[in-house]
């Protein structure tokens, strides 16, 4: 059923301060819309419950990418096209650049924003596993000021985030402390373009003489929220990648994940493939693939 546009309001505040003021004055009333690649789909299908929308597309304060000595800071309003084209991101955070290139199609990447991807909070979103592996932080802003939280604390449950009703995602901070780490990123989907993940994973590790000194891993599409695989990271730290370690890690993963049956895949397939991807990840990072 097609939505009736006259039943919807959209306000364009024009700058960040005005947007935050509007959100603070009527908490929960105004749904922020950036590139619209999620909201407009719901709207057109007649499934968008919110009638009051706030246009944050193109707000300059949300569109910067800043490279500081200790972090690359990506404005929440940056599109995936901008992220994949950015030299410092491609050089130091190539998994994020790759996952940006996995988002929908070129037309979607030109509109979809990093903040939108996180605020929409789909467990199948492309960018979260890389952000988890990079130990990203997110900066939230409201009229009350800004606060910074680890990205691991962003997703509370399926489609539920730690954002309060008056907050926007100002930026995502990627700490520059992983020089020399190897990385691994993989998406399993139905086709190359326009596919939503059945399973996706990103990881990076510091490996010396075949021993995993340290490892960080994120996985998507296998639970109500994107998962940081902390228990597996602990299990693998300080050990050589061999059949014993892989079996232990696969067992841990099996306990951590809770995949679902849906139009894209089945529980059984996701469980098996998640384990296979984890094994491929460990072997690849250790150089034993």
């Amino acid at each position, binding site marked *: 059923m097609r939505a009736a*546009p006259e039943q919807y309001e959209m306000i364009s505040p024009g700058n960040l301060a005005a947007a935050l003021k509007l959100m603070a004055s009527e908490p929960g009333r105004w749904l922020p819309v950036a590139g619209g690649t999620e909201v407009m789909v719901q709207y057109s299908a007649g499934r968008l419950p919110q009638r009051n929308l706030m246009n944050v597309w193109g707000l300059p304060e949300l569109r910067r990418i800043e490279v500081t000595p200790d972090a690359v800071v990506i404005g929440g309003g940056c599109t995936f096209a901008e992220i994949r084209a950015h030299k410092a991101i491609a050089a130091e955070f190539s998994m994020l650049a790759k996952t940006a290139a996995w988002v929908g199609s070129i037309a979607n990447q030109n509109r979809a924003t990093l903040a939108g991807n996180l605020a929409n909070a789909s467990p199948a979103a492309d960018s979260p596993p890389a952000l988890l592996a990079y130990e990203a932080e997110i900066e939230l802003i409201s009229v009350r000021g800004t606060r910074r939280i680890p990205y691991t604390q962003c997703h509370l449950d399926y489609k539920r985030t730690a954002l309060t009703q008056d907050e926007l995602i100002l930026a995502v901070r990627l700490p520059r402390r992983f020089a020399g780490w190897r990385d691994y990123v993989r998406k399993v989907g139905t086709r190359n373009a326009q596919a939503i993940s059945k399973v996706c994973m990103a990881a990076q590790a510091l490996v010396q003489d075949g021993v995993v000194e340290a490892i960080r891993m994120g996985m998507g599409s296998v639970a109500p929220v994107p998962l940081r695989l902390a228990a597996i990271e602990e299990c693998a730290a300080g050990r050589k990648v061999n059949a014993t370690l892989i079996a232990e890690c696969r067992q841990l993963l099996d306990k951590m994940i809770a995949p679902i049956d849906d139009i894209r895949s089945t529980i059984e397939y996701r469980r098996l493939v998640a384990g296979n991807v984890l094994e491929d990840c460990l072997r690849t990072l250790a150089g034993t693939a």
Partner: protein
Amino acid sequence: MSLQRIVMTVNGVERTVDAHPMERLLDVLREKLGLTGTKEGCGEGECGACSVLMDGSLVNSCLIPVAQAAHAQIVTIEGLGSPEKLDPVQEAFLHCGGSQCGMCTPGMIMAAKCLLMHNVKPSREEIREGLGGNLCRCTGYMRIFEAVEAAARKQESEAAR
């Protein structure tokens, strides 16, 4: 909810429309401005039939609330070439058989145009990626890819002249 006056530049001409802010750019182009070259396929950003250029970027016009197109530069299929002198991409689609039923063609040509604006000599892989968001149910894509390669060659030889 009230109508808003929205000004945008469409195919080089400033246009003013009174529209609800959440009307889709696609519907405003087709129904208020009579530019029916842009098609609706899926209506959810998956098929690319509604592709247009907005401020130089390829976008799905079905996913754009017209309020977000205020003051933007929009180019639709009608903005490329003319019946007397086709755009090289349009000409190549015609010559290579890159169009069959025609439903995907305007969006496909806009995606190809956008690709060739940023990459004058795309590889087959780059063409596949550039057109990855545009679905065609007739051609099997090969003639479309050949058309993009032919358009690239034509543009190159014209630039060399």
